[in-house]
């Protein structure tokens, strides 16, 4: 397995140590840190992408070490049978003069057992141009991300901010055809906010980049594997041999505008957003590449977040609607040999072969009663509607469905002796398929890929989770800290009974050891 550059890990640890040092305080007046997870509740602007939100945050920092294990047969065909991994992450806010800084770093390693039909790491979730083999194996993954932002109020009216992220990872499989994947995603997002009277106008633009490199080789040089260059809905363009390679490149550009107002403990943010994302893939030699599909995505979003604070109770309601039309462009190519006997791929036709339209509408409400920096109690609910309509041309393969998911959640914090705090969270939900339609007649992998994936996406299921967190304030040297230990479990039970599924479930157990400063 290829390891992430040691420089990146050292940089992250250095950030951690600096942040901890910056947070050291004297013991004269101990102010215990509050619940870090309540920051988005207290600061509504943290719920939008505009980095000006960081200008309103005081000093806070959180370090955590997490471990999780997932297993169960209710899964997407390309997900592993089971997975486990650990992750260390640190993030924090720091004010220096008029500048407000945010920094975050995380590094995680995981093992994905029994993963098939998936030899990619970071393409967009809607990108149909994926690479796979039907053998699969056990994958070892490393993922890291670095996040940073700085924001500052120039005067009472104008605030600016800029945020950057860098996320990278690698994945390796030791089973022929063994895959070695390296990927990176990065973004830069500047934003501004102009306040006047009770109103505020904000805008941010985002620029993103993506690159991924996949190499697949066989130890047995005479092996012959089929490499599936997927085109959408399980349709694929075949290649065979004992090795294969692919390269992705992507760019995204978008922005949001926000209109906010606040008054007497009420705050509202209305946001319009747009994003254009293009990802292109090529296979084979760089001097004679095979174009394996261009993915183009437009994303339109409108949302409204409303917050009301009365005494220590915070109500937050959110309505959002997203419309995401996407298309996949396929290039029809043939091998040509030039006078120097060099073989290359020549494009003789290109057309939109794949289309998908995703619509999502969400309504969410939450109430939080704060006490001494923690949620004394909280509850809420969420209803989400999703509709997808995908088609593959010219064969007119089709996949269309809509679902409605409703979730309830609740939380209570108990004060125990010796300054211990025990927080219990629970959630329960149900997803119902409202409509579904599929026509995969003619797809070679219909029974092996298309229908199992369709059944997974449209299954009714029950879901629920429990989480317990024990907090204890402590002085680490002179540094007030809130140490916490979390254990939790999430469970999803599907009602599917088909040739591919027999009332499957998926369970995730996790634990976190953390410290807030």
């Amino acid at each position, binding site marked *: 397995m290829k390891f992430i550059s040691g420089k990146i890990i050292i940089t992250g640890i250095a950030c951690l140590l600096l942040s901890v040092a910056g947070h050291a305080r004297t013991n004269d007046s101990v102010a215990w840190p509050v619940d870090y997870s309540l920051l988005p509740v207290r600061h509504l602007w943290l719920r939008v992408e505009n980095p000006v939100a960081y200008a309103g945050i005081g000093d806070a920092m959180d370090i955590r070490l997490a471990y999780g294990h997932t297993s169960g047969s209710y899964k997407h065909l390309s997900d592993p049978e089971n997975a486990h991994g650990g992750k260390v992450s640190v993030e924090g806010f720091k004010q220096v003069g008029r500048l407000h800084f945010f920094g975050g770093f995380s590094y995680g390693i995981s093992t994905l057992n029994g993963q098939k039909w998936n030899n990619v790491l970071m393409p967009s979730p809607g990108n149909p141009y994926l690479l796979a083999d039907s053998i699969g194996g056990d994958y070892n993954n490393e993922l890291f991300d670095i996040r940073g932002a700085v924001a500052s109020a120039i005067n009472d009216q104008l605030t600016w901010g800029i945020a950057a992220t860098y996320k990278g990872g690698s994945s390796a499989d030791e089973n022929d055809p063994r895959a070695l994947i390296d990927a990176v995603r990065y973004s830069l997002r500047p934003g501004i906010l102009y306040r*006047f*009277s009770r*109103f505020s*106008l904000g*805008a941010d633009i985002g620029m993103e980049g993506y690159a991924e490199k996949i190499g697949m080789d066989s130890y*047995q*040089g*005479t*092996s*012959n594997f089929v490499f599936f260059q997927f085109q959408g809905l399980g349709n694929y*363009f*075949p*290649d*065979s*041999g004992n090795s294969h390679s692919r390269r992705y490149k992507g760019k995204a550009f*978008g*922005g949001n*505008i926000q*209109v906010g107002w606040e008054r007497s403990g009420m705050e509202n943010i209305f946001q*319009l957003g*747009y994003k*254009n994302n293009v990802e292109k893939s090529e296979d084979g030699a760089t001097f004679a590449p095979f174009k394996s599909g261009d993915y*183009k995505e*437009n994303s*339109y979003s409108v949302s409204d977040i409303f917050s009301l604070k009365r005494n220590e109770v915070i109500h937050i309601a959110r309505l959002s609607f997203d419309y995401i039309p996407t*298309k996949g*462009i*396929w290039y*029809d190519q*043939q*091998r040509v*040999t030039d006078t120097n*006997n060099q*073989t290359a791929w020549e494009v*003789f*036709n*290109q*057309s*939109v*072969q794949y289309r998908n339209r995703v619509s999502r509408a969400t309504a969410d409400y939450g109430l939080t009663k704060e006490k001494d920096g923690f949620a004394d109690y909280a509850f809420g609910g969420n209803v989400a509607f999703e509709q997808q309509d995908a088609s593959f*041309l*010219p*064969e007119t393969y089709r996949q269309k469905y809509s679902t409605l998911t409703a979730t309830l959640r609740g939380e209570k914090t108990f004060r125990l002796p010796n300054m211990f705090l025990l927080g219990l969270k629970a959630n329960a939900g149900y997803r119902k398929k409202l409509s579904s339609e599929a026509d995969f007649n003619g797809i*070679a992998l219909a029974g092996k890929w298309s229908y199992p994936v369709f059944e997974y996406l449209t299954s009714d299921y029950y879901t629920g989770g429990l989480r317990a967190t024990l907090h204890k304030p402590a002085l680490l040297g002179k540094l007030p800290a809130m140490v916490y230990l979390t254990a939790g479990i999430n469970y999803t039970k599907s009602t599917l009974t088909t040739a591919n599924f027999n009332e499957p479930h998926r369970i995730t157990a996790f634990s976190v050891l953390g410290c807030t400063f």
Partner: protein
Amino acid sequence: MKRTLFNFLFIAAISLLVFSSCSDDDEKVAVRYTIDVTVQYPDGYTDGSASDIEVKATNTQTGTSVSAKTNANGVAQFSLASGVYSFTVAQETEDFVFNGLLENTTIAEDKSLSITLHASAVSGGLVFKEIYYSGSRVPGSSSSSSYFHDSFTEIYNNSDEIIYLDNIGFGALDPATSNTPSPWMDENSYPQDRLPLYGYTFYFKGSGTDYPLQPRTSIVIAMDGIDHKDDPAGNPDSPVNLGNADWELYVGHINDGKDADAPGVPNMEVLHATQPTAFDALYSVFGPAMVIFSFPEGVDPAVFATDAANLSTKPGGNTTEYLMIPKDHIIDIVECVNHDGRHNKRVPADLDAGLTFIEAGTYSGKSVRRKVSQIIDGKVVYKDTNNSTEDFLKDQTPTPFVHPTTVD
């Protein structure tokens, strides 16, 4: 303030519209194209129009195929997605076998195409019953010790008369594989009237009546006539025992003893060699174009092979001389190609309008075997339409000396 807010929202809305309209909606959507394929009988054949004949369109890159029948005007209409297609026609009448091939046709618009059929008499004769060329994998080894010495071909007398094997030639066409276009094609990409043989070429040296092959029986020609499973020099994972082969392709007397001579298995006579140093008579594991052929009346094969008029160097190649066999002396020929989609034809369409290959790839221990057309009095009649796509089954477990008992 309200005016500022209104102006801001107006500008923002316009900006969003501009952004979203910048998307390239002028990209064309994938459609199907109407392809009219007109099938014509060859000149001189006047027995009606080419109607009700099945034409098969095969996407050469994905392997998917669709068929359509010609109408009263001899036109078969297809509705095809963009791609590279080969169109094949195979028809069998009482007296003739008709084959037509239009290969590697790019479809990206509505088109009208034409296929002229080639006719060959239905007279039976010698045919390749099975060709095992893929080799087998040595258990627990790296690629360098994959095993290919267990290859064989089986030749069958598909007629109801005795055929004498005397002075019949055996070999494979150049290029050795179908990976690249053949340099032997003329300026119109058609094969010439003489076909080049590569590697070792053999013949059954006899007086004319020395080697009778009874009707509906076969001979097995082995690269090495040993039990490849049990022999210490063999491969325990080989699927074949060729210790009882009828003939062996022995070349040790040509290449300074590099090849072993299996005792008890008669050796075929070497007719010609492009590479006399090659240590075995290996025909490519990626798919050879195997051929059996005759010689002009009264010509000694050995004399034929040394006559400079029957030798040629490769266009654009070096000084290596290839033995050239006239097309009209080909008895049977099978176009085996690479499984990976590189299907550059070497065989003229009128001799073999199709192709076959091992889908499992090299060293898979699989063979191609001709389909059984009929069983008459317990004897097999194999299918022979001069179209390997139609005539052969892929990925078979090799069964030398064994003939099926049911029709395929």
